[in-house]
């Protein structure tokens, strides 16, 4: 036995192919997910250099960022969006990469369908040209976003040149109280450590509250790790993980599954392993969180008030806060629950899974979306949509006044027709409240699914625990 190692150390060590130079290692990549926005230039690079995809079977592609979420029978109206999706389809055909087409019920947001199909497995290295690839860390995989040049590198070599990151442990003790979700936990963490708090680190989430989360909750938590600046977030696999994976289309079949589980059980941090940074959070003390500004670190308990720039020590942050207040059209000192919203968006790779939709349905059943609010629900995948409809959730949504859409990234980043107009204010279950993120001039407040449901009913940011 060598030195005690963290989960990240173990996955890192088991994927080293060679040392390239000093701290730069060639790391093997087990799974490469591909979408239409960040891949065309990479495939073009292959064509120009006459190279092939090394392991098409370890690669998987789907279009998600640009896809419309309604009137799909009319085709894709935006010519640029259509070109990107057509290009993906042509590239996957040319290079033999498996692909879920626009007419396949299994299509959806790449980070939703990876886990759903069993493409995401414990112990893997997983990359995708999308920062929210951190989602897959929920399975005890090392998963992170890469740029297009790196997409090309992985397509050609099935490896990536990487420097090892530091280890950070976030231990969440106790239990999340009712009304407080994985989303609130993630926002609380980002609010505490900041959007650069995790820079240079891989975060392992541990502790009672994390263990108690479902796989979907863990995905939400790991998804938002990138908003804390960390390279990746991960949760050691356990019985919850194994049960989720078993039987999924691309998961190991009987025989191989047992062998895999025996290996996956070794994927945990050894006693006494070293973490460069450790943070402890008391789950019992948490409340629902919302963001007020234009950075995910602008997160506060819903019981709070919009801050004043002078509350921040750093001069750069003061400038950013002033700018954010102006952009968001907010006055310092305003009670967060007094902020009125005119849009509600439920969906995205952060909160577009079936459990998220069930939670929204539980809150809005028998209630009505306020007249002044435009509310849409976008399932994360075609299979999530079918599941929700089998459970009758779509009827609950539509009866309450929500629009029920086709799957896609939608208003999380507004590359498709779903976007805010200047000055619109949205309670959103997505992951970024950056300026212009949901549409130029649009104003985003990040919230959990139940908090989004509450805001839809009252027309303002609302503490879901107060809803009767």
């Amino acid at each position: 036995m060598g030195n005690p190692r963290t989960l990240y150390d173990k996955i890192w060590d088991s994927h080293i192919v060679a040392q390239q130079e000093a701290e730069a290692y060639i790391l093997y990549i087990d799974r490469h997910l591909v979408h239409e926005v960040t891949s065309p230039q990479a495939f073009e690079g292959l064509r120009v250099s006459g190279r092939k995809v090394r392991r098409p079977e370890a690669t998987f592609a789907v279009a998600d960022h640009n896809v419309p979420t309604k009137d799909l029978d009319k085709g894709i109206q935006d010519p640029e969006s259509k070109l990107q999706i057509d290009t993906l389809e042509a590239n996957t055909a040319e290079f033999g990469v498996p692909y879920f087409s626009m007419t396949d019920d299994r299509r959806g947001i790449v980070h939703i369908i990876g886990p759903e199909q069993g493409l995401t497995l414990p112990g893997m290295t997983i990359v995708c040209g999308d920062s929210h690839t951190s989602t897959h860390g929920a399975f005890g995989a090392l998963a992170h976003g890469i740029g297009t040049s790196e997409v090309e590198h992985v397509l050609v070599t099935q490896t990536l040149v990487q420097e090892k990151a530091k280890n950070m442990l976030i231990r969440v003790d106790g239990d999340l109280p009712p009304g407080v979700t994985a989303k609130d936990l993630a926002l609380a963490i980002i609010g505490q450590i900041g959007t650069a708090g995790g820079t240079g680190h891989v975060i392992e989430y541990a502790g009672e509250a994390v263990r108690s989360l479902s796989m979907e909750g863990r995905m939400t938590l790991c998804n938002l790790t990138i908003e804390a600046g960390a390279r990746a977030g991960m949760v050691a696999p356990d019985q919850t993980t194994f049960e989720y994976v078993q039987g999924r289309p691309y998961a190991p079949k009987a025989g191989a599954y047992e062998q895999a589980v025996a290996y996956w059980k070794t994927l945990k941090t050894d006693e006494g392993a070293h973490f460069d940074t450790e943070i402890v959070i008391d789950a019992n003390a948490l409340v629902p969180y919302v963001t007020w500004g234009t950075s995910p670190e602008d997160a506060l308990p819903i019981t709070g008030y919009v801050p004043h720039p002078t509350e921040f020590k750093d001069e750069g942050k003061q400038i950013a806060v002033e700018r954010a207040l102006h952009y968001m059209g907010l006055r310092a000192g305003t009670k967060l629950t007094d902020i009125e919203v005119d849009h509600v968006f439920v969906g995205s790779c952060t909160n577009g899974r079936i459990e998220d939709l069930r939670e929204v349905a539980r809150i809005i059943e028998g209630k009505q979306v306020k007249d002044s609010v435009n509310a849409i629900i976008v399932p994360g995948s075609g299979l999530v949509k079918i599941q929700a409809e089998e459970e009758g959730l779509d009827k609950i949504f539509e009866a309450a006044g929500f629009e029920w859409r086709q799957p896609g990234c939608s208003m999380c980043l507004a590359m498709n027709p779903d976007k805010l107009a200047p000055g619109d204010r949205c309670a959103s279950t997505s992951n970024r409240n950056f300026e212009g993120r949901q549409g130029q001039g649009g104003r985003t407040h990040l919230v959990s699914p139940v908090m989004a449901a509450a805001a839809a009913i009252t027309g303002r940011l609302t503490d879901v625990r107060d809803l009767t």
Partner: protein
Amino acid sequence: MDKFDKLTAVAAPMPLVNIDTDMIIPKQYLKTIQRVGLGKSLFAEMRYDADGNEIEDFVLNQPAYRKAQILVAGDNFGCGSSREHAPWALKDFGIRCVISTSFADIFHNNCFRNGILPISVSHSDLEKLMDDAERGANATISVDLVTQEIHGPDGGVIKFDIDNFNKHCLLEGLDEIGLTLKKENKVTDFEDARKLDQPWLHT
């Protein structure tokens, strides 16, 4: 990839912290299937008004900074999305070096793959460089990758760190894929061992 060794240029100050990739290149410009031509859309929502006219106050619209090749920016530059369109837009505009106290990981990697040098300096050094940058065209900054030094207009010298691999690649303008392919036999060896150890990953 374009080489980077030395650069002497005007530096534009952007003291804002957490300048994210959505600011650097808003998503409406991600629909291209090419790498070039994004320079005119760099910082589009800060740089142009709703009618597409330049906003005078914005630093890169000011006469002194229109040809800036260095950006001096607040903490955590490039946070957010993995879009390589961000360094593509910077490069297409003419920016070859970004100096901040810290960078988001993916953006940092993406810069190196595109011949852009991201330099991390201390808060106090950043303050000095920000002051220098605010003096506009009268105060050029020199960056020397070989000696890992930044020379200010008044003779001040700031040393910076960079990992050997990225330094080597930038100085030589090396193609990273070509470098890895030289070790392709090691990838094959790894895969062969893997088929025995974890066969479920190689079906």
